[in-house]
């Protein structure tokens, strides 16, 4: 076991745990954002640099600070490590820079993007970015590509997190999915637009942090915050498919089916394409109840409200009506309900 201090909070985790996972054990607002790291995918992480943290003391044995900021998602903890995330101005400044870098070639077409509302990049930019851009040049654009009957790839929005590449590599049998080109000309490709043809290809939609890979059966159907998520399951014949999903309702219609995500937007149980794309009737499913919506989603109310409230307004309110955030933090995701 290793004991580390993360933003002043002590936590004990098994050896070999990454700093990010140690922070997630503490939970709450001090967890570094992660745009490319995805726990179930081996080898993911280290690419987006959103989770950079400062290691103020390397370990109990060697308490020197690390010379550079490190990617918390791939750096293992060491006993006695002291990590600064939100308590370090350097980290916050760098993170602002990372948002800027991720956005300079992003189309910012959130108003027409299906991912809006549950987009990691949108949340990340909202929390750490600035409202204006210093980028005056032309943005990189690509043609939209249909990969198979269900999935559309819109590379223009892609932030090259490599999550879908690892998904295609580790989850599916025939790998026809990878990164072509290099530098800012790199793109997710399916070798001359080969169709990703297997039963688990739909999971690349769930792992995509932005709107680069979208569900063609759901495109432009509805803004996600107008839909109601409901947990449901069915006995899927496919042995690798868990059959446990979230149905997104608008009225009585199931508009889309996704895998269940945890509080950090990570899928823990993959589902097959039959469950995802073919079963869109309530009668196909056993309903469990309303799904808990994660902390970062606009679907869950109040997430974006706090920063825009004038502090004076809060100060003027009677004490009993102000939520003591310090001692009663907002309901932690995944706590209680599943």
């Amino acid at each position, binding site marked *: 076991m290793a004991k580390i201090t993360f933003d002043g909070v002590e936590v004990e985790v098994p050896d070999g745990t990454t700093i990010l996972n140690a922070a997630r054990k503490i939970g709450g607002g001090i967890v570094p954002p992660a745009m490319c790291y995805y726990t179930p995918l081996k080898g993911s*992480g*280290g*690419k*987006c*640099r*959103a989770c*950079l943290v400062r290691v103020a003391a390397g370990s109990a044995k060697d308490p020197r600070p690390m010379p*550079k*900021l490190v*990617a918390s998602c*791939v*750096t*293992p903890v060491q006993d006695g490590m002291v990590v600064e995330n939100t308590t370090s101005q350097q980290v916050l400044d*760098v993170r602002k*820079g*990372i948002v*800027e*870098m*991720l956005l*300079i*070639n992003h189309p910012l077409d959130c108003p027409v993007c299906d991912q809006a509302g549950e987009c990691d990049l949108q949340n990340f930019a909202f929390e750490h970015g600035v409202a204006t851009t*210093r*980028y005056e*040049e032309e943005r990189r654009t690509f043609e939209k590509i249909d990969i198979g009957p269900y999935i559309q790839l819109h590379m223009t929005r892609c*932030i*090259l997190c*490599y999550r879908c590449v690892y998904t295609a590599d580790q989850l599916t049998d025939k790998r026809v999915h*990878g*990164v072509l*080109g*290099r*530098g*800012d*000309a*790199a793109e997710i490709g399916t070798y001359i637009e080969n169709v990703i043809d297997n039963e688990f290809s739909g999971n690349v939609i769930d792992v995509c942090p932005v709107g680069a890979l979208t569900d063609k059966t759901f495109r432009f159907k509805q803004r996600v915050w107008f839909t109601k998520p409901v947990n449901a399951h069915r006995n899927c014949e496919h042995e690798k498919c868990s059959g446990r999903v979230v149905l997104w309702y608008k009225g009585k219609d199931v508009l889309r089916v996704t895998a269940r995500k945890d509080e950090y937007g990570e899928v823990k149980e993959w589902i097959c394409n039959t469950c995802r794309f073919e079963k869109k009737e309530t009668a196909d499913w056993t309903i469990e109840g309303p799904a808990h919506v994660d902390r970062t989603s606009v679907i869950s109310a109040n997430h974006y409200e706090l920063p825009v409230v004038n502090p004076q307004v809060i100060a003027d309110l009677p004490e009993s009506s102000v939520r003591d955030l310090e001692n009663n933090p907002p309901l932690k995701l995944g706590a209680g309900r599943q």
Partner: protein
Amino acid sequence: MGRKLLTEHINVPGIDTFEVYRKHGGYRSVEKALKTMTPDEVVEEVKKSGLRGRGGAGFPTGMKWSFLAKPEGIPRHLVCNADESEPGTFKDRELMSKLPHLLVEGMITSSYALGANTSYIYIRGELLYVLRILEKAIAEAYANGFLGKNILGSGYDLDLHVHPGGGAYICGEETALLESLEGKRGNPRNKPPFPAVQGLYARPTVVNNVESIAAVVPIINDGGEEYAKIGVGRSTGTKLISACGHVKNPGIYEIELGVPVEEFIYSDEYCGGIWKGRDLKAVVAGGSSVPILPKDLILKTAAGENRLMTYESLSDGGFVTGTMLGSGGFIAMDETTCIVRNTWNFSRFYHHESCGQCSPCREGTGWLEKVLHRLEHGHGHMHDIDLLVSVAKQIEGNTICPLGEAAAWPVAAAVRHFRHEFEWHVTHAKQAAQPGAVYPAQGVLA
């Protein structure tokens, strides 16, 4: 005339054949190491020599070797990084094409020291003709019993392979090189784990530059202490410098570390001064990625001392007034050089060569290039100059591999030392946009 340890026989006709090379004292180090020394003694000798990595970072080679993990039953590897593609650096190409046996000899001795039974030379894809030369040298070494099973009856086996890359600059980064050697896309890996623990095929691996490995040969022949006598302070031995740009005699020079920069530029033994009788304007001392320095700072440090060709002297003053020895790609620029155009050209290179894996480098290198392009072509604004510094700062230190820094440093340094020239490109936009336009020399402007 300085001592030449590596290139003494470089101009002997037929030195690329085994017989001639052997006649000139070749493969003595292999005999000495395998017959009279233990692997640890070889490592110790390299440590004593104070040899520092010649690829750019200048990390002590002996120390790097001693970090190699040695778990039981897992093979170890030595990989030679011959993916030399830094603009301005061309020393390894010359060494390999003229003296292929020197590298092979160094590989055998070094592999013996590390206990590696399979070693690789990863060579840049464009150097296909050098690959053929090396393959021929390796075949000759096999035929003469210096490679293969039971070398010289010592019971030590070694197989040596040459592998060409696809010509990507990024594959000169050691972990990207290993990925590429494994047959994957050349993306740098996250560290830790370091190659010394998990390198090629997840086995402990040492990656060394061509020149570092070649330098092991004279170290073993003459002894580490003898090697350490050459040079100044912690910069020991000789170094190949590839001089290019506006000097009278561009080429590759083997210098004893500690030669004054002024002597290196102006002495007839080396560069012979600046061509066409012009004045020196700036120098990039160690390959395109190190900070550029104006004439007064490259000849003398900020404290007024003579700058020497050593790791310490060149980096005196940090990045504010110093630079780095780097890989020894010495680019001199005369007074007619446009620094903005030159910086743009460097930036274009890094933009093209970024692997695109991590966001600051992928997006930032392109951004830098576009802003510099704009400035150079007369469409820039004053605020662009600060933007360059700011973007460079956002890349630096936040990337997976050092390519981010390599892209950021030259831009930041050019603005630091030649801000007036960037400003001139904004205020005299029309003039600057003319082909061949040059910022007027200091005296003309006044």
